[in-house]
């Protein structure tokens, strides 16, 4: 849950199946923090699609499951 380390608030969320701690409170900030600020990705939060246009208004909660997907080979 929300915890303080060296005076900074971190929130634990699950990103692509792995635990991550982020300071961001909204999805678009979290993506930047995780290194995907400029990347072409598609996002889903807790199993529901989040369009790129609504990432800025999408608030994160502790324990959220975030999927960050990209193009891959497929048949």
């Amino acid at each position, binding site marked *: 849950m929300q915890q303080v380390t060296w005076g900074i608030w971190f929130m634990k969320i699950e990103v692509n199946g792995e635990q991550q701690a982020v300071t961001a409170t909204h999805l678009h900030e979290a993506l930047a923090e995780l290194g995907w600020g400029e990347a072409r990705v598609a996002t889903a939060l807790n199993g529901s699609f989040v369009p790129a246009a609504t990432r800025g208004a999408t608030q994160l909660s502790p324990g959220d499951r975030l999927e*960050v997907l990209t*193009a891959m080979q497929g048949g």
Partner: protein
Amino acid sequence: MRDFYGETLQTPMMLGTARFPSPTMMEAAFRSSGASVATVSLRRERGAGQAFWEMVRGLGVHLLPNTAGCHSAREAITTAQMAREYFGTDWIKLEVIGHADTLQPDPFGLLEAAEALCADGFKVFPYTTEDQVLAARLIDAGCRVLMPWGAPIGSGMGLNNIHGLRTLRAAFPDVAMVVDAGLGLPSHAAQAMELGFDAILLNTAVAEAEDPPTMARAFALAAEAGALARTSGPMIARDMAVPSTPVIGKAWL
């Protein structure tokens, strides 16, 4: 000529992008075959996605994202929504897998997802079986293309149920149909096109060949041959021999 949601394809060949020994081989297979559609997927970002996106965009073909690996309608619907945004197309190859060993579609999940996606404006290409009742339901849901399997995905067995495929083709003469999955040899592709299918979709048979670009070309030629045969009125097969050389005028020796 049946179209694919208003699009006419340059060639009746759709090619997957997976399992190739290298990206260069994949590009060469697209060039040598003239495949007009590339299937792609969405997976967790681990660093290689951006380069792959640039590469498939550079192929200059229609992109058909899939929902491969989805086992429920809900998963498939979310994946389709993500794919529409990422790839900038409302085409979706809808896969809802019902069994892990056969990769057989789950007809109930497939129909549920197809109904939701068609209502949401997607142009759905459902990966289905040759089941005619399911096909009718998918068409009722709004699907204008069907993709019946030839055989289980990656098996290379060819057309397992010719009778079922022929019946399906005849039952819905206005619906574009693609034989998807299970093709192993170019002769399977020719056979599918001779049966009146509008295109073939394959991946493993090309990607796992020793020489993928040449095998891709072989499939493209076979598909074209089958399509030409279909439109040129094949003879009816007979049980007994009929001499092709005239009997009249033969010498009395």
